[in-house]
């Protein structure tokens, strides 16, 4: 199979039953994508598939043949450092243990692209498919608001 991940092209021979999440972690060494429940409930393994968020633990790697993926590693700006949403998570304490964070980021980055000025209710709805056991979500919501405000300010 041929796949583009974070802009880089890969070609691999794999078993059909290999899950996309395991492919990213074990075949490509991109361990930023976390594997929690492995049945599509917790959202930790969320990545972008052709630009849209999907759960990589309930897709087969062979299904990515010919497609473009983005993982949390792909959020890093060209010069290094943090993505603005990562920055906001860090400042607002949007994480404690951090296990769920890559999934939240990959869910919320496209959400903010589509909804640059979301209400709190829209934010809570957007992150309803991702489980976090540490934060109680409030600080994650705060981080999304902060990232949205900064984005608005910089575009004005």
């Amino acid at each position, binding site marked *: 199979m041929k796949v583009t991940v974070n802009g880089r092209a890969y070609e691999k021979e794999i*078993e*059909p*039953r290999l*899950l996309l999440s*395991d492919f990213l972690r074990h075949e490509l060494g991109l361990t930023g994508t976390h594997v929690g429940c*492995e*049945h*599509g409930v917790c*959202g930790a393994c*969320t990545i972008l*598939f052709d630009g*849209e*968020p*999907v*759960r990589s*633990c*309930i*897709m*087969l790697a*062979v*299904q990515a043949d010919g497609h473009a993926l983005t993982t949390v590693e792909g959020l890093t700006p060209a010069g290094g450092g943090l993505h603005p949403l990562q920055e906001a998570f860090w400042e607002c304490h949007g994480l404690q243990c951090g296990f769920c964070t890559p999934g939240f980021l990959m*869910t919320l980055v496209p*959400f903010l692209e589509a909804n640059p000025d979301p209400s709190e209710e829209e934010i*809570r*709805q*957007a992150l*309803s*498919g991702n489980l976090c056991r540490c934060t109680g979500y409030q600080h994650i919501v705060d981080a999304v608001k902060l990232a949205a405000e900064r984005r608005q300010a910089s575009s004005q």
Partner: protein
Amino acid sequence: MKPAPFEYEAPASLEAALDLLARHGGDAKILAGGQSLIPVMNFRLAEPALLIDINRVAELDFLRQDADGTLRIGALTRQRRLERDPLVAAAAPLLHEAVPFIAHPQIRNRGTFGGSLAHADPAAELPALAVALGARLRLRRAGGDRWVDAADFFAGLFTTALEPEEILAEAAIPPAPPRTGWAFLEIARRHGDYAQAGIAARVTLDESGRCREARLVYLSAGDAPVQALGAARLLAGEELSDSVIEAAAEKASRDEIHPPGDVHATPDFKRHLARVLTRRALRRAADRAREAA
């Protein structure tokens, strides 16, 4: 939590997929969006010998409207497209209203219209919607096809009218009659969770403003989508007053649905939810029907 080994085929045409099914039938599983199938394969509750991945079968991925207003939805159409495409909002507003309740965006980006129907989870939204919309479903097999009404398609828990060598290829949703209103409501513990109770309602008024036809279809209310035909009969010919609506809600929730209890809610509690949702849905649908008149 990894699937057992299987053979994998990814045919590029429906004909090739049907040929594979004709040869392998019950040993094969169709992989569409995979949002239910892959989890059960991860749990090894399903261990198909052959997986036929139809994601490359472009002819099953379409959304269009016939000249007579019928909305045609290819089985491989992603749920996300149903949510976003203005054609769905215009031609089937009930469907448009309900799609955001299906799981989460991450799921809807992969999950397909046909896959959800063929999986036939009684807690899922699309089976109940297909029945409420009077959809007809086209089942294809190598060298033949047949059309089945959605109301006859769902046979029970995760069970449909599909034969092992058949694929659900498309749905045809007839245009709603004039003076029709609709509402979809559900209650879940968190947005995107499976609903504890849910209803797809549609009412059509006659020229005098009385109810000509009502459809009440429930999810999470039995082994398959449950149509409350008795409650619909109570509404037919009546002005949709609060007392008439209350009688229908009482009838449907007491006599016609059979919700299973679970760790979060008893059957009685779910009946209560269904009664409240019925009342709200019928009021909203009736208001919309009057606006359309």
